[in-house]
């Protein structure tokens, strides 16, 4: 029976051998990407990773950061928070200068503590409000959190749609709950009555009771805060049941993926998008084209997040003139990168003391099967 113990020891030996990759080469800088390449978050994670990789290639072709080539290793979290924690640790052990990822908030919440402890700046794609509420000096967003995005919609509901009764349909996980909680707070603040509050399961397929409840509630508008596939299913069901109230989302609802999946049902949906791949901004149009050329497919906003994250690291590092993690983190706080001087940012972007990000954002609508920007919301 004790053979097993020996075997275990052998396992260790192999484990030791496997970690010989901490080799330091002076002419490279390690910026690993820890993200969701498989599991529920694979779509977002893959785009984030590919966007970041695109920036890495460009920067390396142009001579790297301070003359050093970037090495970006990929660590797949399987959309599992525990795995992501282990992998952030692994990335740090390998000598990371900064870390890209993760995208899913549930993972980021766990692994940001590891990066904080090691003092490694981390550029996350997550949008849950609580990430920047923890006084973690090493976490930075690559798109604004839901607590910034949702209030941008408040004015739209109040001043443009003039609604007094509203419904919210949200996915009952950490992502959806974050948006939902901010939304409830905002509606309370401006005095709009939330008449239907409908949580749904991740991966839910039958939205008939959800739509039917919203229909019965007499809501004049619906705030939809779901993942892409559920967005599409919800839109289809809403169209089927003839739900007339305008459907307004944050980020995902008017994305190209949702439009493809929902077919005609996405027509007329609105969304506030922090970063829209369809924004009528030349820099973003150019990025979208580059991405398509490099990968043969379209990206969603996560591709932009990854892209600008790597560029932000480059610009801030060049400002401090050396590879110093601590200095990088403190430089990022309160930093504004103007797109005219720093074209890799695509849009002028600033970070505050908590790592929260602020920049111009967009109101979009689905028209003729395309996401169209119908207005911009200034940076706050």
């Amino acid at each position, binding site marked *: 029976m004790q053979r097993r113990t020996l075997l275990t020891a052998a396992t260790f030996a192999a484990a030791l051998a496997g970690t010989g990759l901490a080799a330091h080469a002076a002419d490279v800088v390690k910026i690993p990407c820890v993200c969701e390449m*498989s*599991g*529920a978050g*694979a*779509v977002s994670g*893959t785009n984030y990773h590919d966007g970041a990789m695109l920036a890495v290639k460009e920067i390396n072709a142009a001579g790297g950061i301070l003359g050093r080539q970037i090495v970006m290793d990929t660590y797949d979290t399987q959309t599992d928070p525990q795995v992501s924690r282990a992998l952030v640790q692994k990335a740090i052990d390998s000598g990371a200068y900064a870390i890209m990822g993760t995208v899913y908030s549930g993972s980021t919440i766990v692994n940001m503590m590891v990066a904080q402890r090691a003092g490694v700046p981390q550029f996350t794609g997550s949008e849950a409000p609580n990430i920047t509420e923890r006084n973690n000096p090493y976490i930075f967003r690559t798109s604004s959190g839901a607590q910034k995005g949702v209030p941008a919609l408040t004015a739209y509901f109040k001043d443009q749609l003039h609604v007094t009764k509203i419904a919210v349909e949200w996915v*009952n996980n950490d992502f959806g709950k974050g948006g939902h909680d901010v939304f409830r707070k905002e509606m309370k603040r401006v005095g709009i009555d939330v008449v239907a509050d*409908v*949580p*749904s*399961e991740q*991966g839910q*397929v*039958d939205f*008939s*009771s*959800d739509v*039917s*409840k919203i*229909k*019965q509630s007499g809501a004049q508008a619906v705030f939809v805060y779901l993942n*892409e*596939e559920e967005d*599409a*299913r919800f839109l*289809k069901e809403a169209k*089927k*049941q*003839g739900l007339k109230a305008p459907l307004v989302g944050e980020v995902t609802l008017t994305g190209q*993926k949702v439009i*493809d*999946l929902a*077919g*005609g049902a996405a027509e007329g949906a609105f969304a506030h998008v922090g970063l829209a791949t369809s924004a009528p901004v030349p820099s973003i149009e150019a990025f979208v084209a580059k991405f398509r050329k490099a990968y043969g497919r379209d990206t969603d906003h996560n591709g932009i997040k990854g892209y600008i994250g790597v560029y932000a690291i480059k610009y801030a590092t060049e400002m401090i003139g050396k590879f110093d993690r601590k200095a990088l983190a403190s430089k990022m706080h309160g930093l504004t990168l103007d797109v005219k001087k720093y074209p890799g940012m695509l849009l002028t972007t600033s970070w505050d003391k908590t790592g929260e990000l602020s920049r111009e954002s967009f109101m979009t609508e689905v028209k003729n099967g395309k996401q169209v920007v119908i207005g911009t919301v200034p940076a706050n």
Partner: protein
Amino acid sequence: MSQFLQVLLSGLSTGSIYALAAIGFTLVWQAAQTVNFAQGEFVMLPAFFVLIGIHWLHMPLWLALIFGLIVAVIVLGLLFKKLIVEPMLPNGGLPLIIATMALSILLKEGTKQFYGAEAQPYPSLFPQTTLHMDGAVVSVQDLLNLVVSLTIVVALTLFLNRTRTGRCMQATAQNPAVAEILGVNTKRMVLYTFLINAALAALASFLISPVYLAKFSNGETLGLVAFIAAIVGGFNQIRGALAGGLLIGVLDNLTATYVTTEYRAALPLVLLIVIILWRPQGLLGTSEGRKV
């Protein structure tokens, strides 16, 4: 009232597709005493066979559907039986269960690897029109899903009861020893069962994917719901699995509408526990001669 009708009809439509998966599960259980933990993936996968037919082999939809059905029957029926179930049956139930769990990972990851992690739009089989009935809106797709599923169930029941092969299959499932002494080729009958299971899963896949969209992770919830439906209805009865599927579909919607949305997933589970403890043979099942 119109709301009730609305959710009822939607529930029936979704439930009818659960029923198809549950029936396949039931058949395999009867024929081989096998619980297939990859049943959800069996429903997920055939939609991708169809997409391969359409996108890679440039087939028209109808041909792609036939192609998908055939590939599903070969891969999920024949190969599953020959390569996994058959060599493992003598090893008892637990290793087989673990193997089907591993198979579900393999199918999921394989699909993701070869077709991508994103959900894929899937062509509708039926027109996207709606009917208005007493204030409720019913899509033609929902109605036809229900009709097609029920037709399949009726056809299957007729096949099992009205044809010689069907009755041989029943004999094999109910009493393999007797079937054997009557000269029935019991091995072949068990194989037929696996083929039918694969075909049912494929049909469920074709019906469900226009709504569910084709995604590698679709099987996760579906498999579980199919089990629950099969158990609630009665492990050893086709009509039990049908009733179980419809019941779960409807109850899920009614709970979400009138009781609780947060705990909508809990109701089928509570039902499952109550049924197992109170009536292990299921609502419509008859107690099996075999020991469980």
